[in-house]
């Protein structure tokens, strides 16, 4: 028998055997169903605290289908191992978590086990939520149990054998789950520790901003060193941040609260939902997350430049007014430069402040980043307008630019506005992103389409 076939048979057998072993070792009990708690039984202060915590956790983003009922689940989450559908976390007794006791709810967040004792897939970031304090779990419970109950059964997960056996997840946990609450660092300030607690735990920044290994677990040695989210690049947010102007603690706090910053531009893609939610936090908590993040970037001691203003910027071509018909000259004959001058410069050199003006590309993290994925996405599909409110808007150029046009334009931006070397994988990224072979999500910059009928934490308890 050829070696390959022997291994082909042996590997699944071993996997199943070890999964069965893990199952035996990590058997979890079932919590008896409870009668759904009366929403009036929760203290309003506790519910309000839970609303803010749910915003930190960005729970609504995964547990809501865009345009659907908040927290009713059903959003497909693509993983390398198959598609996971988020669960219904409204207090519906049949399809949601209405029959979950506080203890069952706590175990799901801290240990990744559902009420009946099934291991949950780590698409649900319990490997980070495990840091949550029991008090905060109780507040989240109060918040979710007072949401409208929605009767909705999300589709079944589409995960291939052997991972479709829930017990296989137990083996994953043995390797990658450090079950335990947050332990403050006594050498750091209270603000730093508060930020670390929120960002490393419930905020689960590392869920997107940390690269993952072949088994989908975060690489321990590369915390916050950049990852992927819904087809977008999640930039490194440690000392390797590609932002051309270093993030100060104040700049981060402004950005996380407002979804944009004069020196860095507008949050978009999955991060738009995050900033949309964090805008609802107290100043204290946003500043704590910002301070901790800046310390990870090594910029916590950096003085802020003061209120964000558009200073004079060095840019190619002529300066022009926002709605001038004049086009910058194209002396060099470079094709990418010509496209930039005619299609981009009228906004991106207008000098109009963020978030409504185009960002000067000297300040663009997307153009400075090692991976061009985000600038490709934004150039193709722009920033769609939000419904019923002012938002940053950029038209998409999918119908305007051929693949070659895109490559010429982005190479020009890279050479003109950064000191970084050319991107190596640009052509392939452009064609797979356009064709959809590389799937990305594109939504308005303010997350409003997530659930227009119910904006989650924005809704007062």
């Amino acid at each position, binding site marked *: 028998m050829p070696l390959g076939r022997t291994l082909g048979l042996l590997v699944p057998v071993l996997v199943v055997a070890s999964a069965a072993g893990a199952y035996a070792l990590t058997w979890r009990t079932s919590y008896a169903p409870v009668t759904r708690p009366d929403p009036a039984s929760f203290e309003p202060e506790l519910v309000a605290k839970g609303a803010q915590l749910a915003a930190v956790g960005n729970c609504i983003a995964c547990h809501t289908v865009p345009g659907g009922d908040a927290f009713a689940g059903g959003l497909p989450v693509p993983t390398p191992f198959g598609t996971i559908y988020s669960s219904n976390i409204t207090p519906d007794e049949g399809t949601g978590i209405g029959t979950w006791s506080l203890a069952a709810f706590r175990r799901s967040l801290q240990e990744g086990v559902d009420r009946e004792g099934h291991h949950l897939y780590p698409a649900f970031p319990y490997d980070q939520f495990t840091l949550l304090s029991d008090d905060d779990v109780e507040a989240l419970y109060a918040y979710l149990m007072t949401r409208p109950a929605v009767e909705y059964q999300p589709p079944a997960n589409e995960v291939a054998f052997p991972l479709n056996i829930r017990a296989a997840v137990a083996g994953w946990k043995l390797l990658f789950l450090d079950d335990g609450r947050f332990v403050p660092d006594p050498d750091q300030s209270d603000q730093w520790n508060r930020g670390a607690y929120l960002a490393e735990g419930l905020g689960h920044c590392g869920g997107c901003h940390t690269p993952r290994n072949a088994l989908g677990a975060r690489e321990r040695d590369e915390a916050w060193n950049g990852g992927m989210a819904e087809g977008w690049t999640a930039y490194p947010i440690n000392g390797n941040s590609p932002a051309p102007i270093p993030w100060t603690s104040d700049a981060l706090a402004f950005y996380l609260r407002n979804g944009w910053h004069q020196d860095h531009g507008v949050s978009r893609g999955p991060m738009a939902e995050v900033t949309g939610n964090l805008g609802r936090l107290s100043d204290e908590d946003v500043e704590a997350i910002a301070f901790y993040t800046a310390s990870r970037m090594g910029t916590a001691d950096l003085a802020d430049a003061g209120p964000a203003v558009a200073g004079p910027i060095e840019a190619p071509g002529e300066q022009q007014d*926002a*709605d*001038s*018909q004049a*086009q910058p000259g*194209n002396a060099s004959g470079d*094709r990418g430069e*010509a*496209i930039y*001058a*005619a*299609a981009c410069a*009228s*906004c991106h050199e*207008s000098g109009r402040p963020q978030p409504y003006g185009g960002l000067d590309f000297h300040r663009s993290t997307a153009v400075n980043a090692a991976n061009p994925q985000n600038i490709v996405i934004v150039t193709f599909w722009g920033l*769609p*307008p939000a419904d019923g409110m002012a938002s940053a*808007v*950029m*038209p998409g*150029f*999918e*119908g*305007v*630019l*051929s693949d070659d*046009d895109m490559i010429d334009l982005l190479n020009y931006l890279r050479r003109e506005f950064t000191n970084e070397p050319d991107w190596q994988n640009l052509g392939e990224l452009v064609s797979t992103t356009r064709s959809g072979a590389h799937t990305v999500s594109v939504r308005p910059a303010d997350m409003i389409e997530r659930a227009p009928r119910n904006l989650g934490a924005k809704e007062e308890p």
Partner: protein
Amino acid sequence: MTTRLTVNGAVVDVDSDPDTPLLYVLRDELGLHGAKYGCGLGQCGACTVMVDGTAVLSCLMPLLTVAGREVLTVEGLGSTDQPGPMQAAFIAEQAAQCGYCIPGMMLRAQATLTANPRATEDEIRTALEFNLCRCGTHIRILAAIRRAQREMQQAAASSPRQGEDVL
């Protein structure tokens, strides 16, 4: 240097510089004044035309990216004497007030219904988000697009299907 492209079915060679926006080529060199200059920033949609079947903002499309491609403007949808279905529907619903946004609205709608003849009300509204109307005739514009959709579907149902023997 000339650039060759197809405009409303006719092959044309134009002399404008390659970095000239398509809108200026259409209006200034070809004398097609249907597409309008609104903001020049891709924010208002008045300059919307179709290129290879897709709605684009012609004020932000340099000529060099249009070489060899097919452009459709409101002049290509029909004439005063024989308006096309989209134009006839806008007339029937009296959708124009000042009219400045209307050619862009018609081309955006045409592209939307070409790609998806059964587009829902929500899909049509989403597609039109980039086209602004300051007079506020949105309700009539939407009514016109629904009328055009109905008439296009009826025309498609009563005409021979593609590949069917017309004899």
